[in-house]
């Protein structure tokens, strides 16, 4: 089928969308626009392997270790890298880029994802880091060689993985978070507290239940001041405080951009034709977790949503009906924290009750399984240091008919 598809966003979601468009039968031209200059690469190692890597800081070398395999079916796809979409007209079917170019499309894939949120705190500019892109990780890599102390703000996955990596490199690291325990929002206080205690025993410091009010230092950061008035010394700060959706370029088209971009269950952006969204920017209803549309920031989502969105777009371009089966992906994510390997299915954050099914929270490294219920229904499970052979059953638990 002919027709030009423009994919805006050149990370995992954009790449998988192009591959799945080909798999769904689209043989027309595809253009992928990406703000970063790098071909799509894998981000989870940025807070772990990239920081720990002992080699030089050559960006090509580090990128080569992260770059995604690209299916042969997209060899003819045009990548416009180092360029950002700044505006769009979804009635005229055009996207405007920051270099003045306007791209016309027949079908559009929204895959612009998220950017790291930064804290607007007073204090010096030098020494503030985030960790979302390869360039961010390179900046942090070079900074950690000349510092003995660091503060990580935010005790979620990115923050704690980064803190664990810095700790392993011999840096005295303190994690600060306004919530009472680490991972409180993602995993709840029961498991979150157990992981925090495990990391504390290993030597990672935590200051929870407190926020940061300012950074100290004259030319560069020398510490952070907490809201109880105390100061923690730090040669650098990593702000791991969540992200903002890259939807500005979609403004003015009458879309619901209140949290990502609102879509239907087939990933069709609501209110316009021939536009689909993929990855962590897509807010779609998932019957597994009730009907409320939600964004899901887990690594498995770009791949899952790209498959459905591509099928939808190819059908819509052809004026054909889409598959009748509802789209109900099971989110999956993992985390490596020192000697702990977490593997999760579902959305533990949605649970109102956490149950320790096996193991001892005081001995996480020996293996623990926690399940999460919402109004009595399974919404997530997290395995800590359990053999991977058990994963199929943990995943399949979400496929059981609802009683």
């Amino acid at each position, binding site marked *: 089928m002919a027709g030009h598809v423009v994919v805006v966003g050149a990370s995992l979601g954009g790449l998988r969308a192009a591959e799945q468009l080909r798999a769904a039968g689209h043989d027309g031209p595809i253009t992928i626009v990406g703000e970063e200059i790098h071909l799509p690469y*894998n981000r*989870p190692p940025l807070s772990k392997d990239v920081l720990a890597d002992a080699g030089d800081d050559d960006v090509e070398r580090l990128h080569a270790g992260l770059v995604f*395999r690209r299916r042969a079916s997209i060899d003819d796809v045009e990548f416009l890298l180092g360029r950002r979409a700044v505006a769009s007209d979804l009635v005229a079917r055009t996207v405007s880029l920051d270099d003045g170019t306007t791209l016309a499309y027949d079908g559009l894939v929204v895959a612009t994802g998220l950017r790291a949120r930064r804290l607007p705190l007073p204090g010096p500019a030098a020494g503030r880091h985030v960790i979302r892109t390869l360039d961010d990780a390179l900046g942090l890599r070079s900074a950690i060689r000349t510092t003995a102390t660091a503060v990580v703000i935010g005790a979620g996955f990115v923050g704690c993985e980064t803190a664990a990596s810095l700790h392993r490199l011999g840096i005295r690291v303190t994690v600060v978070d306004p919530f009472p325990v680490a991972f409180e929002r993602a995993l709840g206080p029961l498991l979150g507290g157990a992981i925090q205690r495990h990391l504390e025993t290993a030597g990672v410091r935590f200051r929870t239940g407190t926020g940061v009010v300012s950074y100290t230092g004259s030319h560069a950061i020398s510490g952070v001041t907490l809201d109880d008035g105390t100061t923690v010394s730090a040669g650098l700060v990593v702000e791991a405080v969540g992200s903002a959706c890259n939807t500005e370029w979609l403004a003015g088209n009458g879309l619901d951009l209140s949290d990502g971009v609102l879509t239907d269950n087939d990933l069709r952006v609501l209110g316009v034709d021939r536009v689909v969204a993929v990855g962590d920017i897509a807010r779609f209803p998932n019957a597994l977790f009730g009907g409320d549309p939600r964004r899901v920031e887990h690594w498995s989502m770009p791949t899952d949503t790209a498959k459905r969105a591509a099928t939808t777009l190819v059908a819509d371009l052809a004026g054909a009906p889409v598959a009748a089966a509802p789209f109900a992906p099971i989110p*999956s994510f*993992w985390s490596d924290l020192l000697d702990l390997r977490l*593997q999760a299915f579902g959305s533990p954050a949605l649970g109102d009750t956490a149950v320790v099914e096996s193991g001892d929270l005081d001995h996480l490294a020996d293996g623990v399984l926690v399940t999460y219920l919402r109004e009595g229904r399974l919404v997530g499970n997290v395995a800590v240091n359990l*053999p991977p052979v058990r*994963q199929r059953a943990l*995943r399949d638990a979400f496929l059981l008919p609802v009683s």
Partner: protein
Amino acid sequence: MKITVDLDKCQDHGQCAIAAPVAFRMNDEGNLEYETTVEDSYLDEVEEAADVCPVQAILIGQA
């Protein structure tokens, strides 16, 4: 098709064994075992296994 797993990269996450049990399984020690050749009719499953590998260690080639 031929399957190659970069065992220096593989961290035994086990996602491939969920996506394509015909080619990948995790043994009782928690380590990956895999078939180096499977029928082309399983291409979709094996492609999915390669896609969902967190460390992108799976390569698929022509038999």
